[in-house]
């Protein structure tokens, strides 16, 4: 078992192309034991590809993947026996029942616990009948039961709530929150829905065009972004603009977006204290924090190569 605080998963400079289309262009990610990592990104940002590389389903063109402190070789199944995985879409054998499926999957994991599996099936209210009769939500819960039954040290979830209705989605997220709160495993789950990440994750990584745009805690992320709205410039709009440019030029700030009139800027700073200095320079502006969803949108829109 990995000691607390140790690195469970580390991706370094991961690169992957599908034909001429680049999907990952130097992705870095680090996950430690006990952390719940929300991997956030738009559709096509590279989330699923990253997770498939972690699971060994796909191989990166360049870069390294370390699981539990050791580089992963394609032929070595032992690290993957310590990982539980819930795929974006479930493709179980629909002629199997949950019990048969558990027996089949359990044969590949040395630490498989049939009692725990039965307990999870009961907890998730999964009936003992052929999987072809299951709804989408039941399939996802079944996948989660399989992923947890062998007591993994790393739990990987690839957009597990995709395609679920709001009720089932909420139910699943509550189960997930309960499990990650109780468990000692590290959890990495991807989503394009910000509210899911806010509900469950303690750490977030935002990926866009195959590159990590931000990695850190939610609190840190919230503290690095501000929206400032300037008052009506009156007769001389140019003067206000010049004042803003002068203030921004002297401070370590990056403009994520600009709208108006009236002028509205979203700015980013690695150092939250800079905003105090900005307030001092532009006392007439209104400063407000952004929600995680707004920060996410601003970050991805401002990425190189983003759509206008």
């Amino acid at each position: 078992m990995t000691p607390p605080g140790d690195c469970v998963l580390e991706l370094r400079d991961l690169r992957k192309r599908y034909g001429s289309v680049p999907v990952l262009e130097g992705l870095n990610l680090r996950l430690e034991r006990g952390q719940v990592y929300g991997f956030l990104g738009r559709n096509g940002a590279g989330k699923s590809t990253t997770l498939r590389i972690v699971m060994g389903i796909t191989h990166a063109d360049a870069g390294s993947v370390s699981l539990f402190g050791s580089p992963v070789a394609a032929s070595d199944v032992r690290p993957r026996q310590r990982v539980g995985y819930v795929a974006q879409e479930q493709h179980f054998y629909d002629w199997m029942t949950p019990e048969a499926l558990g027996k089949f999957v359990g044969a590949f994991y040395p630490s498989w616990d049939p009692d725990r599996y039965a307990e999870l099936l009961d907890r998730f209210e999964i009936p003992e009948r052929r999987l072809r009769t299951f709804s989408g939500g039941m399939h996802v819960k079944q996948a989660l039961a399989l992923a947890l039954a062998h007591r993994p040290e790393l739990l990987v979830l690839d957009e597990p709530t995709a395609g679920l209705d709001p009720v089932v989605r909420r139910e699943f997220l509550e189960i997930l929150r309960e499990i990650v709160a109780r468990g000692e495993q590290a959890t990495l789950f991807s989503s394009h829905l910000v509210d899911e990440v806010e509900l469950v994750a303690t750490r977030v990584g935002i990926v866009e065009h195959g590159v990590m745009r931000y990695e850190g805690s939610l609190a840190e992320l919230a503290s690095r972004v501000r929206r400032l709205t300037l008052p009506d410039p009156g007769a001389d709009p140019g003067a206000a603009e010049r004042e803003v440019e002068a203030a921004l030029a002297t401070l370590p700030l990056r403009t994520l977006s600009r709208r108006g009139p009236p002028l509205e800027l979203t700015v980013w700073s690695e150092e939250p204290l800079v905003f105090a200095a900005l307030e001092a320079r532009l006392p007439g502006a209104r400063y407000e924090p952004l929600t995680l969803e707004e920060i996410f949108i601003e970050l991805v829109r401002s990425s190189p190569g983003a759509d206008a």
Partner: protein
Amino acid sequence: MLDLGAGRGSSMPRRLATLMRKELAQHRALLWVLPLALGVLGLMFWAQLRTHPSATNRLTACAQALRIFVPLAALALGQALIVREYQARTQLFLQALPLRPGEVLLAKLGVGLGALGGTAVAFCTLAALLQGEFGLRVIGSMALRAFGFVLAVWSLCASFGLLGKLRVPAYLTLILGVVALGRATSFQLERFGPFALLEASTFVAERVLPARALLETALASVALLLPGALVGLWRDGVLAERLSERATAREAVAVGVVLFAEFTAIGLLRPKRDVAPFQFVGDGVARGASHGAQVLYGAAELAPRAAQVASALGALSERMRGELGIDPPPPLLAVHNGLLEENRVNTRTQELGGVLLELNLGARALDLQALRALATHESLSWLSRRRALFEPNHWLLDGFSQAWSGDAPALTRCWRRALVAAAHVELGADVVTHWERLMDQAGEDGANALGCSLVDFVGERHGRERVLELVRRLLARPTVTGLVSWWRERHATPAALLALHTGEPWPDIVDAWQRELARRRARAQELASEANDRGELTLEPSAIGADVVYALTGAPAALDRQCRLLSLQLERPYDEYVNAERAERRPVLWPAGAPEVHGRVRGLYPAGTRAWLALECHVPALELDKRVRSVRLEAP
């Protein structure tokens, strides 16, 4: 539910075992059906061989059944084990499990090979035991051959299953490739690797290990497996995933264009000119002067008779080369079969790239003339790609085979037989041209005799060289090889060519021949009684179906005559040639001194059915089964 085995620990053998158990559980219905299907198929072939007059060892039914069963079963298993996995996308689920690349594929290959191979081996073993064959060597040989065939075919189907939407075009391309190879080179599929293992004549009989065939099978299996393995494993199986998707319209068009090009290319290929001659290997083979003449006899005491046959076939081979211009002559192969009746010869031409005759070398007497005639017939049929059997050519093939291969006594006998046969048929130019109808009336022996006398007559009338020219032109080579040659040859019949080269119209030749027959019959008084026999056949209604009523009339004989009634229910089309071997035979004794004999067979045919009926009487002096009457009737 089959226990899928949640094992402690997860070594590779355990993982493979788990995967295989999953496959067995998932496809158990199909795996149960396979042995049943093979059993039924085997029974059908066995039943057919049981009644087939030329069948010898019933165990050859195993080879016949496997040739059909294994490819179909392999296709079905490939579809179930491999294609469906990708179509249902369950391979994505397997990819996410801690498995090594290739383990899933290996498990599927193992299950398929085990199921098919096990079924085939068990089938052969059971068939051998039921047939009373307990020799380990025989059973082992059959099992090894069957397994080898399964290995090659399963490798192909499993591999191509991974090609997804390209698998059907791949199959077609492979088939066309084999056809092209066969046409352009001396390659013969039936003599290659897995197919040679299942060759019917050696499947049971051959005692030596087929090392070459096994090696070819192993290499072919690896070569066939490679494309699929590459597709399945390369780039994390992404290629196999993409190929499992439905073909787009553009892809379908592209594939269609490629296949059309392949078909066109095949059509333009010129057929190969030479076929490598087949060789019997090992001990117990007698060879004639010509290398192509070989006799496989097996037991030492048959060596002298085998040498005699080989010498006769060798001499025949040399005559074909010299007089008919067939160079090289086709291989003339003979195999001893102790179960055959005396003077019975089976032909299995074209199975081994030449003429293959089965005969009983241990029989009391051996009719070398009949053997030469049959070998000539089969050789010309094989060389002309069976065009010699087309009706306008058929009389020339049958007649020339008898006349050319025989010596003077044989020719005399054929004339005497012809005199007797001619008394019971209506001859004429049209009748001779429609040879199968003449065979229907006169019987095969009678028709052969008539054809022999006609060829001899034409030779006497217009010169033997004219007849040889005709044979070289029409029978000793494939005259029709494509559309253009068919158009050119469609009017080149013996009748037309005779008229062209002799200046005598065909009807005039036939009339002159008939007059010759009448002249000779008038001088052969000892055959008059045979020529005057008459027969009548009718179908009369009765409460239980139509009765066959027969009557034979003629001059009373000094000895009992052995006659027989032949009957066969006809299926559509009702006017097809009847092979008398398939007819039911009922003995009819015509007592000595009796001017007639009558009989009735009750309720033989339901009303509305059609039947072919014939009366034959044996003429011991001519060794001829004279057909006195034949009719096709509808049961009232």
